[in-house]
């Protein structure tokens, strides 16, 4: 039954074992590939946390879209809505944000920034509306529809930068820069850290409050835990709650796209996202769908990516190796998390 324990002794041993094993495996593989594992680890750690720039300009900037998409996933999954479409909703948000940011140049920043972010949220929500209606009206499972909508959104964004929103000279597949007034101010002068991070923090705190204190938050949790019991015992309009979860989730993912455009890139490009909408699923699940936990896991994933990039630059480890190392770290974290749970429920385990 519980083979790891049986083979290896107590849960602590398994935890240590799993981490050591993955670390050793990673080290051996790197070494076999002709790279210095210690230098790689050092470069990764320094590149993620080692300097002010590493922490503020790189790791934290990277974690902002992960926080927002992670929260998007948390909202949906908490209500039992398996939205795997955050990636597409993010692109929809980015397109809308850029559009407003380009067109609204005459507005004062005080109005333009909210308009840009608002448009991003609305676009993300609208992108989620299609699968929501397909689920509620036609009974089509959302896992597949939201996944398909991702591809459509990515090609829509590609079309936009080649077509209607292409930069004025019509040469490069990108938009022109959005108006100065549409950009998110930098939070810490001299770094790339923009106020989007504050927005992400506020969103996390707000969601945490929503789940704990509000009626709709409670209803979402109930529907997610048992739709039948929510309907029968809780007299909850489960369809309404599902719709709200879809829209809220889409809006947050759309906001992630808007914040990325307004805070970091100032223009829309193809390949804006490396798959944040998918990584977000891991971010949210690792946080057990807890909004505050998402902050921690998003920073973890942001640091992982920052570390992987630094490993390339400063230890000469090629990108493919850095990606492989990332996968090993995630597996080690998973094993650790699992064993922590096991240890907690050891007495009650089956």
């Amino acid at each position, binding site marked *: 039954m519980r083979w790891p324990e049986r083979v290896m002794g107590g849960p602590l041993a398994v935890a240590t074992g799993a981490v050591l094993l993955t670390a050793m495996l990673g080290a051996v593989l790197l070494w076999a590939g002709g790279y210095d594992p210690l230098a790689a680890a050092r470069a990764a750690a320094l590149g993620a946390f080692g300097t002010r720039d590493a922490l503020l300009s790189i790791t934290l900037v990277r974690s902002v879209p992960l926080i927002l998409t992670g929260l998007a996933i948390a909202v949906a999954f908490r209500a039992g809505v398996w939205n795997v479409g955050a990636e597409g909703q993010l692109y929809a948000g980015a397109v809308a944000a850029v559009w407003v940011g380009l067109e609204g140049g005459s507005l004062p920043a005080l109005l333009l920034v909210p308009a840009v972010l608002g448009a991003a949220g609305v676009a993300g929500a609208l992108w989620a509306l299609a699968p929501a209606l397909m689920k509620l009206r036609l009974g*089509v499972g959302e896992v*597949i529809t939201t*996944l398909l909508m991702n591809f459509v959104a990515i090609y829509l964004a590609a079309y936009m930068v*080649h077509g209607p929103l292409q930069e004025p000279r019509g040469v490069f597949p990108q938009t022109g820069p959005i108006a100065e007034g549409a950009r998110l101010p930098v939070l810490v002068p001299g770094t790339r850290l923009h106020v989007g991070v504050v927005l992400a923090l506020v969103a996390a705190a707000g969601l945490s409050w929503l789940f704990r204190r509000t009626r709709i938050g409670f209803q979402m949790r109930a529907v997610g835990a048992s739709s039948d019991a929510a309907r029968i015992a809780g007299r909850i309009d489960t369809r309404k709650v599902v719709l709200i979860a879809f829209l809220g989730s889409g809006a947050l993912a759309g906001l992630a796209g808007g914040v990325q455009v307004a805070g970091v890139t100032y223009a829309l490009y193809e390949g804006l996202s490396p798959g944040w909408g998918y990584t977000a699923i*891991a971010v949210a*699940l690792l946080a057990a769908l807890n909004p505050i936990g998402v902050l921690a896991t998003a920073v973890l994933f942001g640091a992982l990516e920052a570390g992987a990039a630094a490993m390339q630059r400063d230890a000469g480890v090629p990108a493919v190796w850095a*990606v492989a190392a990332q996968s090993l770290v995630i*597996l080690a974290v998973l*094993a650790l998390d699992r064993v922590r749970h096991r240890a907690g429920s050891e007495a009650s385990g089956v």
Partner: protein
Amino acid sequence: MSEADLVLFLEASVRLGVPLALAAMGEAITERSGVINIGLEGSLIAGALGGALAALAFGSAEAGVLGGAAAGVLAALVFAAFAVGLGTDQIITGTAVTLGGLGFTGAVYQARFGATGTALTLPTLAPLPIPGLADIPWLGSALFAQAPTAYLAYLLAPALWYFLFRTEWGLELRAVGENPDAAQAAGVRVRRVRVLATLFGGALAGIAGAHLALAHAGTFAENMSAGRGFIAIAVVALGRWNPPLVLLAALLFGAASALQFLLQAVGVDLPYQLFLAFPYLLTLAALAGWLGRTRAPAALALPWPRRG
């Protein structure tokens, strides 16, 4: 469109559909056991590289297919060890396995063929026309003048259907995916069933990857799976977790992709991004129309034993 065009279009549809069909039918079996392996992409790319290396080593494309299957199983084994053995979250584990698959295949490829890569020429799995059948008008060459892996897909569809719905093992597999506690109470070894189902899915994904490298492209390139593992997961749902329907869904998807290339070559003057989005839009339309209501296995993606 002329008849010749249509025949070529149908051939391309099947060619593009077969790797999806193989990977998706395997994943359908995995998902029927309650395990969603989104590390499928990892198995697929591992299969492509494993297939390429084995084909080079043994100088035979058939050996390459076996090598692909083995590499696919290896990636699935990592997934199963964590997600089924340790009970880690399936989605996160799958993400890690996909990353690992893409990373390690790239690393092995570069270690073997140099940092700048090389345009590998591999022994190819040539089309094997089936005498008689291949001459059927319209569909004959599309269906029956394909690589042997295509025939594997055709044979697997009914075989897996029979397995799932007409054998005791199939019943156990479905029970494990619907309610593992109940299956266990009835004496079924839940973990064993899930591991085997996952490895089977990995083997088929590996063969799909080998097909891409050996029967389709004739080479290996990093990331050449190009997201087909994720498409296959959508195809499983489109095919309602039922192997023959999954095969049809994969062929439908293949046809939509083939149409995209056909329309571009014909010179239809629309932004090409629209063509690229076409297969996905068509699938959405199919779902909204007649394919509607799907129900996933009830225990899909839930770790077992339940945490709490």
